[in-house]
């Protein structure tokens, strides 16, 4: 056990209370002036530069602005090839989809906490809510009566045909055996244009909603949102994570996190996100623990920026003299 006296002695050696001169310093005055200056500066910046507010994309606006992209995306939700359908945890149980660090997949370990079945949640479920459409009712009956393999065959065939159609236009899809899929996706487009799908995709079906997981995932599966983002320099290759819409500073403090996504192996690895997070976690821990890291903690001594910070003080104590200070004044 360390004795109190010994510890106290070591603490004093480390702490070395300042025994030199003091000067008047009005903390309250400094705080007050700083508060006034910062408040005024904030007000001026807000008046001059305002803040960006670009309207959100809804499924309704998307389906009006780019109906072909909407239908093509819905087709991938139905045949299970969309980004969400193949995502893995926390949305689906897709084998091998989770990112890993070496042999450890924290994504997989955390599990599927927001389960999503894109066929039911994004397509069939919302269509079930549409009243008074005999053609759709027949199509849904046919779909539900068919074996899963037949459903997959229809959906895959239509998705492929849609991708090969000029401009992914459903009206120009080659003739084929697609079962009820064209009718279903046509009705989904109609539903989306009315705005009904925006509400249907909100979780739990309750009146009060704050969870936009499903509609956001559906929108993000399409190309429309990403195209709009690229136009606003928000894309991943545009250092978009630290940008915001318009010509605003954005989250400049995310520059290091964004940087890793621009360089290999992070930019090309299938586990890029996990690798970037590990690197940033290590660096963040390093920042917190700088005082304990030999070499890193010595940098301020080796590179004497402190001579600039304390230049007034050092001028008062020429190098030839030891740093001995006059007696401590009254406080």
């Amino acid at each position, binding site marked *: 056990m360390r004795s109190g006296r010994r510890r106290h002695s*070591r603490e004093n*050696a*480390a*702490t070395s209370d300042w025994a030199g001169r*003091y*000067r008047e*310093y009005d*903390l*309250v005055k*400094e*705080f007050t002036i*700083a508060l006034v*200056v*910062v*408040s005024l*500066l*904030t007000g001026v*910046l807000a008046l001059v*530069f305002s*803040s*960006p*507010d*670009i309207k*959100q*994309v809804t499924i309704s606006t998307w389906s009006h602005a780019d109906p072909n992209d909407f239908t093509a995306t819905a087709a991938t939700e139905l045949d299970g090839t969309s980004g969400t359908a193949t995502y893995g945890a926390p949305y689906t149980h897709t084998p091998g989809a989770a990112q890993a660090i070496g042999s450890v997949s924290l994504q997989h370990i955390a599990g599927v*906490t*927001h389960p999503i079945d894109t066929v039911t949640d994004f397509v069939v479920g919302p269509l079930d809510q549409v009243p008074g459409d005999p053609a759709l009712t027949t199509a849904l009956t046919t779909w539900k009566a068919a074996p899963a393999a037949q459903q997959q065959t229809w959906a895959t065939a239509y998705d492929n045909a849609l991708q090969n159609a000029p401009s992914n236009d459903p009206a120009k899809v080659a003739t084929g055996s697609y079962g009820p899929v064209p009718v279903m996706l046509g009705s989904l487009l109609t539903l989306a244009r009315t705005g009904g799908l925006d509400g249907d995709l909100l979780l739990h079906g309750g009146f009060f909603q*704050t*969870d*936009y997981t499903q509609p*956001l995932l559906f*929108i993000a599966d399409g190309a429309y*949102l990403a195209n*709009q983002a690229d136009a606003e320099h*928000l894309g991943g290759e545009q250092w978009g*994570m630290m940008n*915001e*819409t318009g010509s605003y500073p954005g*989250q400049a*403090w995310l520059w290091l996190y964004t940087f890793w996504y621009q360089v290999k192996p992070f930019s090309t690895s299938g586990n890029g*996100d*996990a690798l970037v*997070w590990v690197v940033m976690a290590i660096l*963040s821990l390093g*920042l*917190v623990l*700088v*005082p*304990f890291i030999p070499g890193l*903690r*010595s*940098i*301020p*001594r080796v590179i004497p*920026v*402190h001579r600039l910070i304390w230049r*007034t003080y050092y001028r008062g104590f020429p*190098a030839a003299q030891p*740093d001995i200070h006059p007696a401590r004044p009254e*406080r």
Partner: protein
Amino acid sequence: MTTPSVGSNWTAKLRNRALGTFPPDQLLPDKQPIYVASWIYVFGVLTITAFLVVLVSGGLLAVEGPQWWHGSSAGHFVNSLHLWSVELFMAFMVIHLWGKFWMAAWRGRRVLTWITGAICFLTSIGTAFTGYLVQSNFDSQFISTQAKDGLNSVGIGAYFNVLNFGQMLLWHIVLLPLVIGLFTVVHVLQVRRRGVVPPFERDPRDTDTDADADVDAGVLG
């Protein structure tokens, strides 16, 4: 009824401990060591005052609700105040952080001061990030759909769902500011307790001795 003797009950012990650790003239001193004479020292108080402006402007947004600023010019102005105060807050804090790094401000049993400051910085990044998520506009839509991949890749997204507006709003306006506020208080109290770190001595042998002594002496004490 027996009257407890002075200093024998919990309240008295807490008061004595607080006064012993933070005597009034140390908690709110009107003098500073002669070396506290540089513009870099201003950035600590600038960070705190910017944080207060962030809290007030964010509080005004909270009073009217998260959708207010989309349809009101006054609300838009308050949102602009919030945005620019955050930009100033982060800028001041980064300058403060770099200044303290070059001073090696963890010397002299000031490691806890450094650690709490670094935690404030990292938590502020998370708070600002959640702020971008709850703007409820195109920016927050795209940022959330992109950010989910990083968080999901390490399992955080399973419980911290950036696509859940309600969850992010509460993190942004309650939990994370509370963490920043608490660590800021501890940080400032540590500065008052340990004082402002003095300049490096001129002895060339003075290399890592302070840092080693910090560790040996129990830096968190």
